[in-house]
């Protein structure tokens, strides 16, 4: 016993030293982290300043380019704030395309369009597929007005939207090109969505349209948009059993094979929200946004993006200067009116078919099998 206590003291001193060592380690790490944080904050502030200076410089350069393009003999084509510089402007339908593109931008984005076109767009007209291009976007000389307009709009891009609106919309706000085609596509979505809310919308229920468009931004939208059978279909189309681990597969089988709705709900709850099949996609919502902007007239887009914390319904109402029911009603009416025509054979296709039949028949009749000479 008397000999044991010096050993015990030594051991406890060692343990205390170890603990103290650990405490020192963590304290040292904490101090180091704090110093790094201070340095990072300083560097971050300086970085933001440098970036702002760079942005200003870029803007100034763009302004100079815009102001002096004509003087430098670059034959700029301008409509509104959009300037396009092409090396052979007369060989492509540039004026018309620029005018249409600017019209589309200003109608869709209002005052925000100017920021998109601060930098003039450069195009290089190519007459040969193999031509090497080092400056500007290549554009074939046989480009149509529609294609050129889309190219220009692709190059200007779209203004950024806040995360909340982007989450609902599925993307940034896009200009609507071919309104008839868009409406026809949304009509098809309504009809084929396989969702009770979409069916109700098609049959005239504005509440159904609001639900199908997920305007309430509900993360458990599948409880209201789909019925039990449709939820089962959503699970079956969202995943295949082979891709699942054992635990998920058990829930999947209970849902899809045993038709247990609670299992379907549980499975859908475990899926990331963007992967759950939605009744109406980005195209339908973008058309709704476009409808709201058109109803709201001047400044509509700015009003839409003014309050990024507001719910989507409120933002659309503010943009359109109308209650949401009115906006959705207008949208629905346009979609119903945009029903695509039934498939028909065009006269050209019919003539082509007859022409081929005639050619083959001629070949058969002229065969040596039938001819005596």
């Amino acid at each position: 016993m008397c000999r044991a206590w010096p050993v015990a003291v030594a051991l406890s001193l060692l343990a205390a030293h170890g603990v103290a060592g650990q405490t020192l380690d963590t304290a040292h790490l904490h101090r180091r982290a704090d110093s790094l944080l201070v340095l990072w904050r300083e560097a971050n502030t300086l970085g933001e300043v440098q970036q702002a200076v760079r942005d200003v410089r870029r803007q100034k350069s763009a302004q100079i380019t815009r102001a002096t393009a004509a003087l430098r003999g670059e034959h700029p084509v301008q409509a509104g704030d959009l300037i396009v510089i092409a090396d052979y402007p007369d060989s492509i339908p540039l004026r018309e395309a620029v005018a249409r593109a600017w019209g589309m931008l200003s109608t869709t984005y209002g005052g925000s369009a100017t920021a998109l076109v601060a930098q003039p767009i450069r195009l290089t007209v190519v007459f040969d597929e193999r031509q090497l291009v080092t400056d500007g976007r290549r554009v074939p000389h046989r480009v149509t007005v529609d294609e050129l307009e889309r190219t220009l709009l692709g190059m200007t891009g779209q203004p950024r939207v806040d995360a909340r609106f982007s989450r609902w919309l599925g993307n940034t706000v896009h200009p609507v090109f071919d309104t008839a085609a868009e409406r026809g596509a949304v009509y098809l979505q309504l009809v084929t969505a396989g969702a009770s809310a979409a069916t109700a919308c098609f049959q005239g229920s504005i509440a159904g349209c609001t639900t199908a468009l997920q305007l309430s931004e509900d993360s458990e939208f599948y409880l209201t948009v789909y019925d039990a059978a449709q939820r089962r279909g959503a699970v079956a189309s969202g995943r295949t059993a082979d891709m699942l681990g054992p635990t998920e597969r058990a829930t999947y089988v209970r849902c899809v094979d045993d038709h247990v709705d609670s299992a379907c709900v549980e499975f859908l709850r475990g899926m990331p929200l963007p992967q759950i099949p939605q009744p109406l996609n980005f195209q339908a919502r973008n058309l709704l946004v476009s409808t709201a902007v058109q109803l709201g007239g001047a400044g509509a887009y700015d009003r839409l993006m003014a309050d990024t914390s507001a719910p989507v319904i409120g933002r659309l109402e503010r943009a359109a200067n109308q209650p949401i029911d009115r906006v959705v009603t207008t949208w629905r009416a346009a979609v119903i009116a945009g029903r695509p025509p039934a498939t028909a054979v065009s006269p050209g296709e019919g003539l082509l078919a007859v022409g081929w039949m005639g050619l083959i028949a001629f070949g058969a009749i002229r065969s040596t099998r039938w001819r005596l000479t």
Partner: protein
Amino acid sequence: MATDLRYWIGGTLALCLIVAVGAVSGPDVRFSPEDAPHGPPTKWGGEAAALGAQWRGTWKRWRLETYRARLTPAADSARAAGGTAPLLFIDGPSTAAQRGELHRDLGMIWKQAAPEGFKVAVALVIVRDSADRAGPDTPSEDARDGALTYLFPDSLHRDMCLVVVHESSASRRYFQIHDQSTMTVDRWLSESLGPCAFYGAYGIPGREIGRWLNTEGMAYVIYPRWWAKTRDPWLGFFYPSDAPKDRPPSWWWVSMYSFMPWDGAACYGGRVARCARNVFDSTAIADSQPGYWDESNWYRQQPFFSGVTYLSDLARDLGPARFSAFWSADVPMDSALHLATGKSLGDWTLSWARAVGPTLHLGPSAPPLDVLWGLLPALLAMGASLWYARRRQIG
């Protein structure tokens, strides 16, 4: 040779030459300005990014050491009490009932995994979202920040293996939706334990095994499942259930090639030497035992289908005593496996791979039976044709 024959042969050879020359001249490279990368960050922006990365690393390391320091006394007590369950610490909101449930589940898992108690204490820390934020005005998170992290025993802390689990869909299902289905929780907890389960059950690995783990071996110890009676059939990669194991559909191959290294694909094609090379490359082994590891990059390319259960399956195959001998061996990993199993690394790996994985036919050769089934009816038909011709002979 007839004149027309010369023309035909000459023409054919000329066309072949044109084809060869045409294919040799490569395609034009077109440069399109929209493909050019964005401009570099500003000088201070770059500095800030570098400092941010350093800060994240240091802050993360500080949190790990803090957890370790906090849990060391509890680990000592648990070892003294027999080491019947990993330690659990939840950083963030949780109810007493949830903590009790998780303790109980961990105890049940450990009873199967290491009935004799742990040799190295295993501590599991679950970090809820609310506890995971560094605070305002700090560098934004990196993809690696949320990855499962392991801190292995080192010279100062020889007796604890620490696991830090950040909030994930599985933990959210448990804490928020109260998804308490046993299979889900059991799998979530045992998969989280990862390599630390091996440390806990079998102790610190031998020097050479540790060096192998530190190089490429972590991918093989991620899912400890040796206490399950049978092997997990899930391949960890999509394989169509209606396709036979030796005839995957064409579209599957490109994904498979992207998913695993060439040696892994060659192993499933039956090449024993490449099976071994895929597991153990003696030319590139780390100098030291593992100290720290996180799961941020392992999923990008896995060495095998279900490679994550490789060492678990070996442990099940060998039993605790022989696997312990393998784990603590001080010879290179391939030799240790040979001593433990009696088979070479390549042979054991090939039979392991083929047990649940597909059999791949590499190269253009057709399976021999396909050749037989094709030639047999063709030759029979030809024989019938000759026999029929003989029967129709007049005179």
